[in-house]
């Protein structure tokens, strides 16, 4: 079972991702923790050592790009899926360079997110 950390400053988005995973639509994944910004994500990640992470980019305290760079050093085995509203190519490429493994644009359908999470875990 892959252990997922959900990082997003939106409570509604965190709940939506968690519900999708709990529904069995993804399979082989369990929610290990949640965080509302990059700093909190690093603290939680140290504690729970997730296998995979969904990462928002626009967040207070520490944004997603900085958090990805930190997590890539802290947990090099963890696979990171960016789930962000920022829709320009340059942002996606920069996130991948910093250590992300995939990118899903908001808004997303349940099917789009489930497919991206399955691909992330392969």
């Amino acid at each position: 079972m892959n252990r997922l950390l959900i990082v997003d400053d939106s409570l509604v988005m965190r709940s939506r991702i968690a519900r999708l995973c709990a529904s069995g639509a993804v399979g082989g994944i369990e929610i290990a923790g949640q965080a509302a910004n990059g700093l909190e994500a690093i603290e939680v990640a140290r504690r729970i050592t997730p296998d995979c992470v969904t990462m928002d980019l626009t967040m207070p305290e520490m944004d997603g790009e900085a958090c990805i760079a930190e997590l890539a050093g802290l947990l090099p085995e963890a696979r990171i899926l960016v789930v962000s509203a920022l829709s320009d190519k340059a942002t996606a490429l920069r996130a991948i360079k910093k250590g992300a493994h995939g990118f899903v644009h908001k808004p997303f359908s349940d099917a789009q997110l489930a497919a991206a999470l399955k691909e992330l875990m392969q």
Partner: protein
Amino acid sequence: MSYRSLRPADIEVFSEAISHFFATATSDPAQVRSAYVIERGDPILWNDYNGVINVDGGFAGCVAFSAPRSLLSHVLLRMGEQDFTDEKHRDIVGEIANILSGRARRHFGEGLSISTPAAFCGRDNAVTPRARSTPYAIPFRWHGYDADLVVHLDVLA
């Protein structure tokens, strides 16, 4: 630095973002209407909940999503929420503003630097105009509810 006002093609980007959001996130399309100018002195936000994104970089101003509680409750329901607290309504109005602004970066590029959302209930004088040009409202209807995206932006010329 000199800034220019929004052009019709710029405003169309935000209209498309509204259509894309509702079609993708709820599977039900919104009927987006023609944008109109908000007259000087009129409030730029007037609905129950408002989510405001301040914009920087080669831009100055804000993008605000202004919606009645009933529309937001329905969106939350479509996203699978089962409790409809004030906190959830403020969260989703800010998140929608964030998503619509983020999609505009396809057109404007990463120079459109967007803040985390500020969300609040009702009219609020704390929204200080940060752009000199005319604000536009893009009205739309979804499931019988009327709401607006307000775009008040100067673009670096």
